[in-house]
């Protein structure tokens, strides 16, 4: 089913696409920055502070505990936040378009 003509103008505008991509990219980059920082900084920490990173915690060297165990919960947290936010973002985008359509055409449009 096609979107009503007036809604089409809204969705197909340059501004809509720009805003859409910028919002998505912002969310993705913010999430990626956290784990990239961790991935990038850990080798540096190993390189410049070998003694501190070799400190024993429950038998584990600190750096082993971080890389072999603690990294995974970090990944889960990032994934969870991303998924929650991105579903919310999509819902908001859909709502935005609906509202714009309603303003112009009156009755709510059905979507496939």
């Amino acid at each position, binding site marked *: 089913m096609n979107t009503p003509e007036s809604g089409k103008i809204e969705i197909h505008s340059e501004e809509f696409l720009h805003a859409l991509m910028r919002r998505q990219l912002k969310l993705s980059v913010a999430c990626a920055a956290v784990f990239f920082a961790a991935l990038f900084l850990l*080798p540096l920490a190993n390189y410049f502070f070998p003694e501190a990173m070799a400190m024993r915690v429950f038998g584990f060297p600190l750096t082993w505990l971080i890389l072999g165990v603690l990294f995974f919960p970090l990944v889960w947290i990032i994934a969870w936040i991303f998924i929650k936010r991105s579903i919310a973002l999509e819902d908001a985008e859909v709502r935005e378009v609906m509202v714009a359509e309603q303003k112009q055409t009156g009755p709510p449009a059905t979507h496939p």
Partner: protein
Amino acid sequence: MTPFLAITVDPWILTFSMVTVLVTIAMGFWSARRSKTASDFFVAGRSVSVGWNASAISGEYLSAASFMGIAGMVMSSGYDALWYPVCYACGYLFLLLFIAGPLRRFGAYTIPDFAEGRFDSPLFRKIAVVFVLFIGFFYTMPQMKGAGTTLHYIFPDLPYWVGVALVGAVITLNVALGGMKGITLVQAVQYWVKMFAISVPIFVLMAVYGNYGAHLARNDKSTPPSALYQASGAATNAPVPFSSANESGAIRRTLPAKAPNDESWLNPFGPLTTKAAKAAKLSVVESRPYSLLYTYSLIIALVCGTAGLPHILVRFYTNPNGTAAKRTTMWVMVLIGVFYLFPPMFGVVGRNIMPELYNGVSGVKGTDGIVLKLPAILRERYGVLGSILSGVACAGAFAAFMSTFSGLLVSMTGALAHDVYGRILRPKSTSEQRLRAFKIAAVIIGTVAVLLGTLVENFEINFMVGQAFAIAASSYFPLLFMSVWWRRMTMRGAATGMLTGGLLALVGISLTSYTTFVVTMSGKYTADTMPGWLATLKANSLETFWAAHPLWRILSEQPAIWSVPLAITLMVIVSKLTKQEIPPDIRMKMLVLHAPEELGLKQEYIQEHLAH
């Protein structure tokens, strides 16, 4: 004759392994009867629930590298090997953040589908399809090594290549008959087999021989030698305090000379990353910058490479809608993350209680078999329990290499049948002809994969998978990432970047692998007994060149640090030069990639396309 077999083959291990294989085949046949159309074969008709799909994706993702390779490499190389599981998980996250959603909305089944659709170029599809095969074959080699190692463990008299051929034949048959629908179900079950098989044995082992931390604590060069020689008899039934290495109760046997010492094994920048610098005879301090470079290049390869694996992406389409796809991915992150906690434990415990595997170096008798062999050590105290747990581990190994090999086979066969046959050779073929082409293509690819697999007996599983990731990172990753987020990309820009980055990475990796191959081959002979052809190969094996230029060796063995930026730069430059070739309906394409599926832009796009 029969008693001979009965002595060398453990019935429990054989039973568990056979059951896994038979159940896999049975499920393949069962679902083959239920999948009839070609679209069933390719993406399972898009009708799989979140739980099943998450298990199936995880099952496909956890290959022999995850199940056997990580443990083997942690044992052989120590800390540095931990980057692999972490980056496999992070890579999946990276895929989720930047590529999975848009690609799903675009509705392309495979990467070549996407390449064609995004640039309206059937030519580019033909170029892109090549890398499905390149990456696929590099990724099937380690699976075959896993198969050969496992069968050699179950049947010690069986040569490595027989194991590879047997497993390859069984899986190829299964794929040719079952297709993807079968694989979704089989792989979901196989995830849980793998999870059970990696977790239960290690919990029992740690309860008996001391826990993870306690075993790590034994890797302490200050431990007095007397404590190192402790035999296997120490009782560890009492709860173990792990404040002190000597009181921890973790058993340790004498390490053979081939094992890396405690300090280099336990700490970053160990044997894996210093290989090149060591061959160049650099001092420990001098080799550290090289190790850092190696580590970063490895991280880039693994994180970016996941996004470019041909068999992973196709899975995002087996969800009914975008929200379900996202929920599925969350579950996948959890399922694979939990799994990855376990393999390093095998490596750590294995170093202390099964150090004899260090003598097998990287061959079939080496550390790659630790996950299978370690539980068998329980036989010395609890008899049959050791055999049962070792059998469970073997079942997990079968599940690992069978599921990944199947997934790859489907992708590669799909590329050959769907693209090369269905689009290039016979565009007018009927549905039946295509289905037959699928089966023939599966046999061809399976045969090539087996032949390649027989060559890699002396390569570590995990290392080879890392190489496949590096090629994916240098070819498909830049293509997908840039095509999704940069609208000014042109077909020529994309093709130049993908081909240059991917092929240069492929060449670099092949060069160092070739050297390793020749050097290990010639290592079996002395100067007098070596055949002439091998001596010639050895003389031209680049061994001396790599020793003189450790930096080149690292950049060649782990190319991602230069090949990924190179591919992206070339894409930008060539796209700018060919600005006039930007697809005219690029805004619509970008909308389809980024607008929520509920807005129905995909349907609109298809209608517009049909009208043209």
